[in-house]
């Protein structure tokens, strides 16, 4: 608690299975070196497809609908009992959770304590849903795989991980599309601040499958650029859509006093958050960025900070023409008004867009930046969109220690969520 008796919340454990690395060290290296995780990748080999690049997960093979054919790194042990109800990204989530437990030095007793909760974000697995629902139709309802529903619907991560790890404080899933895990982090923070829980595991995951990815091609939201080096280029004038990715990221929010007492690492402090809604369109962001600007201001107000104190904004920007420019307008409205130019970058230039997972992945990146004292540069930015004028988008990673970081997220339905993180200095307690 601080001098006023308020609980302080920290990020005290991380786990990553992402296109740019399958552990914290590899991810931080990729962020520092602006190394992307894209490869030529088609979901229907042998056919002409419009989308040819993806942010692939290396070291895993989850192409089959049957877990017996999946492959994963040897360091992780999974039983049939666990695998039978997992979607592909559930396998990644389990691996990310194992990393988090080790990194956060959590004991089994702490995991299963009545004040430990689990909040998740995942779109479920349309890939497995299709697989399991086909026999339902073929047999007119007679033959339905009993675990099909829990492995395929949107709550699959909270069902599976909550049961496997024996979580007893709270288990809840969030479904605000690409803002899902930002909501999960925000409400997890509130639970700790209110004293209801001492720690909240936040886990996001997404399949990288034709069903999850190409569905966005229906909206013409995906890049058709076949070059892995340039397909994802947020804020660049030549951007033509996002590049899909999958995997899973796990992040531990915890009462800092408790984390400190048990010797856990504190990567960053979370000091507030805010949200808003566009009230405009189910899929297209409000063009002026009004809603996102409201969420940014609310987040800073909740943290008792002013725009002039922000050092870095990890943008939502996915590399779509409409979304990026709306966010640029929001950034200009918030920071331009006070003549402040924080560094801004979207790390989706390196990872691709992880949908429900994106916010927790990028919040994890921000925590690494705060702890490691660097600011990720804007990868793949060659010709900035004219709307970038006056904003500070460094093209290389900066060896500067940010003190205050904002993490922006937006999702279908006009959800906007902004999280505020602060560099953790023990002397500040």
């Amino acid at each position, binding site marked *: 608690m601080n001098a006023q008796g308020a609980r302080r919340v920290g990020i005290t454990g991380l786990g990553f299975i992402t296109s740019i690395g399958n552990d914290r060290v590899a991810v931080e290296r990729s962020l520092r070196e602006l190394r992307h995780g894209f490869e030529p990748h088609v979901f229907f080999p042998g056919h002409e497809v419009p989308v040819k690049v993806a942010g692939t997960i290396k070291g895993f093979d989850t192409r089959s609908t049957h877990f017996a054919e999946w492959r994963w790194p040897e360091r992780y042990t999974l039983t*049939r009992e666990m695998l039978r109800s997992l979607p592909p990204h559930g396998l990644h989530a389990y691996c990310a959770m194992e990393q988090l437990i080790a990194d956060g030095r959590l004991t089994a007793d702490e995991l299963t304590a009545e004040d430990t909760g689990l909040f998740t974000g995942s779109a479920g697995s349309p890939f497995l849903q299709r697989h399991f629902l086909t026999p339902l139709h073929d047999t007119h309802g007679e033959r339905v795989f009993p675990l099909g529903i829990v492995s395929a619907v949107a709550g699959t991560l909270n069902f599976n991980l909550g049961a496997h790890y024996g979580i007893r404080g709270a288990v809840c899933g969030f479904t605000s599309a690409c803002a899902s895990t930002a909501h999960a982090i925000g409400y997890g923070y509130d639970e700790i601040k209110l004293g209801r829980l001492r720690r909240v595991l936040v886990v996001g995951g997404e399949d990288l499958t034709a069903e999850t990815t190409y569905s966005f091609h229906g909206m013409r939201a995906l890049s058709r650029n076949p070059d892995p080096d340039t397909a994802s280029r947020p804020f660049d004038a030549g951007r033509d859509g996002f590049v899909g990715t999958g995997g899973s990221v796990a992040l531990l929010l915890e009462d800092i006093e408790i984390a400190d007492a048990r010797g856990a690492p504190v990567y960053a402090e979370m000091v507030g958050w805010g949200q808003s809604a566009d009230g405009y369109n189910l899929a297209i962001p409000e063009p002026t960025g009004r809603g996102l600007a409201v969420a940014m201001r609310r987040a800073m107000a909740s943290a008792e900070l002013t725009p002039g104190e922000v050092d870095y904004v990890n943008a939502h920007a996915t590399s779509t023409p409409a979304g990026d420019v709306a966010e640029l307008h929001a950034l200009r409205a918030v920071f331009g008004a006070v003549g402040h130019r924080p560094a801004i970058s979207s790390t989706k230039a390196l990872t691709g867009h992880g949908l429900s997972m994106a916010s927790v992945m990028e919040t994890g990146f921000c925590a690494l930046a705060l702890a490691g004292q660097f600011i990720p540069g804007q990868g793949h930015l060659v010709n900035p969109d004219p709307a970038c004028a006056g904003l500070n988008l460094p093209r290389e990673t900066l060896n500067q220690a940010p003190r205050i970081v904002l993490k922006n997220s937006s999702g279908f339905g006009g959800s906007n969520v902004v999280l505020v993180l602060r560099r953790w200095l023990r002397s500040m307690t």
Partner: protein
Amino acid sequence: MEAKFPHSDKLRETLRGFPEDTVTACAEFQATGSDEAFQRTVRGVLVHYLSPPPPKPIMSYPGSTRLVADLGLDSITMVELVFLFEDLFLVKLPHEKAIGVVTLDDLSTLLHESLPPPATA
């Protein structure tokens, strides 16, 4: 070394992830109709679905062993087993009969009754 009883692609696909012993037992049952191979198949499938696995070799359990009370099988896994056996033996196990299965012997009997009679010369 070539398998004594050839494993069909269909058998391999149905028993993806199962121990080789169980796949071999089923191939032997398909080739010979041996009751002993049938028992090894059924119990091999069963033990693969049990978590935790039973403390003793599954073949050492008497037929009166109860699937739920003694071996720890749950109701969802029982449905998985029924589907697997239907695919493996190309039979239909009626729900009304499957829910009446309590022991290892009950399971064997249900499967035996559902299998087509052996071909005669």
